[in-house]
C-alpha cells in the first residue's frame, strides 16, 4: 500500500503509461477527456492505464467542481532514486544527465 515499489515498476513498464506521465508533466492537472484527446486512444484504454498509475500513486487525482483532475506525483520515483543514489553521487549524476541532454539535443524517453 505504502508507495509499493512493485506497483511503481509495473506502472512504469509500459510506453503508453510513460507517455501519459509525459503528458501530465507537460501540462499538469488534466481531465480524462483532455488526456484521451491527446492520446488517440479509447477512453476505456486510458482509464485502465490511469488506474494502474493511480495504484502506484504516480498519478493522483483531485476534484475541482465537477471535474476530476489528474496530476503527476513524482514522489514514489524520488523515493526509489533515494534508495540507490548516494549522497555524493547526485551532483555528478545530474552533470552527466545535463551533458547527455546537451549532446543529444533534446530530451527523449
Amino acid at each position, binding site marked *: *500500500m505504502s508507495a509499493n515499489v512493485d506497483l511503481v515498476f509495473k506502472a512504469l513498464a509500459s510506453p503508453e503509461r510513460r507517455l501519459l506521465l509525459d503528458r501530465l508533466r507537460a501540462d*499538469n492537472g488534466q481531465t480524462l477527456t483532455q488526456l484521451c484527446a491527446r492520446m488517440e486512444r479509447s477512453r476505456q484504454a486510458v482509464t485502465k492505464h490511469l488506474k494502474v498509475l493511480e495504484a502506484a500513486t504516480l498519478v493522483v487525482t*483531485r476534484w475541482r467542481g465537477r471535474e476530476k483532475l489528474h*496530476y503527476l506525483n*513524482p514522489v514514489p520515483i524520488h*523515493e526509489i532514486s533515494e534508495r540507490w543514489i548516494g*549522497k555524493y553521487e547526485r551532483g555528478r549524476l545530474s552533470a552527466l544527465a545535463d551533458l547527455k541532454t546537451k549532446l543529444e539535443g533534446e530530451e527523449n524517453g
Partner: protein
Amino acid sequence: MAESEFVYVTYIRTTREKLWQALTEPEFTRKFWVDTVQECAWKQGATWTLKAPDGRVADAGEVVEIDPPRKLVLTWQNHLFPEMTAEGFSCLTYVLEDKGGVVKLMLTHTMNKKDSKTIKAVSNGWPHLLASLKSLLETGESLPGTDKWPEGI
C-alpha cells in the same frame, strides 16, 4: 483556468498526530526542511513565517484553515527572490488521511497565475523534503542534505 499547481502524495507509516507534529513543530521541521524554522501560533488568521537559519524570512503568509490533525491551509509568499515575491501569495494545503497503519499525506501548492516561478521552485524541492519527512518518521533519521540550509541562498 490560468493557474500553476501541483499535487504530491506520500504514504507514511505513522499516525496523523505524529505527522502533524512533524509538520508543525520546529524541532521536527528543521530536520527535514533544510534547517528552517517555522514560526506560527497555529490558529486561523495567525501569521506564518519560514525562516532561514540566519534569521532571514524565506517565506511568509497566514493560516487560512486549521483542523489538527487533518488539514492545514496556508498562504505562502516567497521573500528571498524578488521575482517570486512579486508574484504574491500562493496557497499550500496539507491533507492527512488515516489509511489504517499508514497516513496518506496530500500536499497541494497552487497559484492563480500561469507558469508561476514560485510554484516551479517549490515543486522542485517538495519531493525531496517529503521523502526526507517519510524517512524521519519511519526510521528516525532524515535524508542527507535535508538537514542543512543550501549554500549560496
